[in-house]
């Protein structure tokens, strides 16, 4: 990525795509379309901005196409497995590597977004950054520290549930960004992105919680990832109780995420209706 100065960052920045509309003229890769400068001070050349905007847009487009393709591959793999074997047992093991790769790769996007958002909008969208950060962390945590580490729960139905939910959500989301960046957004994709989450999020939540709950007995028995006293660092960590705290933390955090998405939905879909009325 190009080294952007702070002032440039305020104009050519890429906030978490889940929270800012790509069409927001303040913060988008497609600066070429919105030439009016919100920020007044600097006298950079418009060309420099346009080039940086173009490069960033190209990278983002490529990234989203790749992610859409990846999650599609995952979906196809799951369907094929189920059709061949007729059961979901062993399915997770089959797709584990691909899933881990694409879910971890998403960290890259979030880290960059987080850094940019931190510098661009210090204070303004901080809660959103935290909320998105929590979502990413929980995904990574599920994949690396629950399903990949605890073999015995990989055949649970709840695992299939949340994997399916993630796949559908990610395909919708990334294809939305892709089409948006290419300025050819079909309405049904926009509709899907802002409506399917209403069902998908709770389903995903149930899948994740049930999975963690199923993992608890195995964690307790094996004492994995735990550190007991006495030891020379004089600290202890109990993974079992940690998981219980994680489960409890879903209670305050999930509604925030959900209502955040609902607010986005209202802004995007209802904002559009207002425009149509004027015409």
């Amino acid at each position, binding site marked *: 990525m190009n080294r952007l100065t702070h002032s440039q960052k305020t104009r050519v920045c890429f906030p978490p795509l889940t929270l800012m509309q790509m069409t927001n003229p303040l913060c988008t890769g497609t600066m070429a379309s919105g030439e009016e400068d919100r920020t007044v001070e600097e006298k950079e050349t418009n060309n420099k901005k346009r080039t940086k905007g173009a490069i960033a847009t190209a990278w983002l487009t490529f990234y989203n196409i790749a992610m859409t393709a990846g999650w599609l591959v995952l979906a196809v793999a799951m369907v094929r497995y189920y059709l061949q074997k007729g059961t979901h047992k062993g399915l997770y093991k089959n797709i584990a590597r691909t899933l881990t790769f694409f879910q971890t790769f998403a960290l890259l996007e979030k880290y960059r977004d987080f850094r940019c958002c931190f510098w661009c909008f210090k204070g303004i969208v901080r809660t959103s950054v935290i909320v998105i950060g929590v979502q990413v962390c929980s995904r990574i945590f599920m994949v690396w520290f629950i399903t990949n580490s605890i073999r015995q729960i990989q055949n649970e139905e709840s695992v299939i549930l949340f994997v399916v939910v993630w796949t559908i959500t990610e395909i919708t989301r990334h294809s939305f960004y892709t089409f948006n960046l290419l300025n050819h957004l079909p309405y049904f994709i926009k509709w899907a992105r802002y409506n399917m989450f209403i069902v998908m999020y709770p389903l995903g939540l149930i899948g994740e919680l049930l999975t963690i709950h199923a993992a608890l007995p195995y964690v307790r028995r094996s004492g994995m990832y735990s550190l007991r*006293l*006495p030891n*020379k*660092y*004089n*600290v*202890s960590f109990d993974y079992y109780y940690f998981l219980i705290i994680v489960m409890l933390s879903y209670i305050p955090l999930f509604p925030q995420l959900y209502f955040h998405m609902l607010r986005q939905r209202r802004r995007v879909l209802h904002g559009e209706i207002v425009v149509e009325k004027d015409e």
Partner: protein
Amino acid sequence: MKHYEVEILDAKTKDKLCFLDKVGNIFTFIFTLYPQWYPARQSIRLDPKGKSLKDEDVLQHLPVGTTATFYFRDLGAQISWVTVFLTEYAGPLLIYLMFYFRVPFIYAPKYDFTTSKHWVVHLACMCHSFHYVKRLLETLFVHRFSHGTMPLRNIFKNCTYYWGFAAWMAYYINHPLYTPPIYGEQQIRLALIVFLFCQIGNFSIHIALRNLRPPGSKTRKIPYPTKNPFTWIFLLVSCPNYTYELGSWLGFTLMTQCLPVAAFTLVGFIQMTVWAKGKHRSYLKEFRDYPTLRSPILPFIL
């Protein structure tokens, strides 16, 4: 010569009811009109997004023409710094002692009200308690605060931080299964020396900073080394009180060899570095002749 005074006269008798020449008078005036906004929670500025005007700013010296528009902002419920400091320091003092005396329901019942067999645990309790008693006394008798108040929600945030960490540290240090430092007496002795040295240093700096400012005033001056050798660090550092504080906690970490203590030291260090950098920057902005050799918190490094 332009003369800015705001007089409020009684309409009938033309007696002077009120005379506004400082911003502080405006605060009082608004307070009489809106009693729910006591002066500490008022913020008045010339520009809606600008900096707040200070109490002692003289109206005559403000950059305004013949008419002036002030913008008001309610800062929310305020609480005095002294109250916050006393609460956030009294907590760790008492909480640690609860763990030290092994009050019931913390450890297994057979350990209730027992004492640890390791002498380093007793030493750690003394050091920890001494540190917070020192802080409490400094808050009451040494510090001179520039702002009287801070937002109310800060007390919850700060207390959670201090009390939470104190409980976490105290739990492990006073645990029946506590493991003393690997290098034994040598490690503990060195740690104690570091700790005491930094405590005295920290106190010296606080005294030196207090003496910079006459009682009741809010003047700002560059701190310089005094006759006290512990203040000679002012040659190299802008905020040596933070440097010494870091040193104290490093000593305590070494003494107890406890990971939660190390975590607390690290988090404190990060926060103090942020503060030190801010203070250093404001010194540089305010004083043209600020010594260039000084670093914010760690000599030459940070």
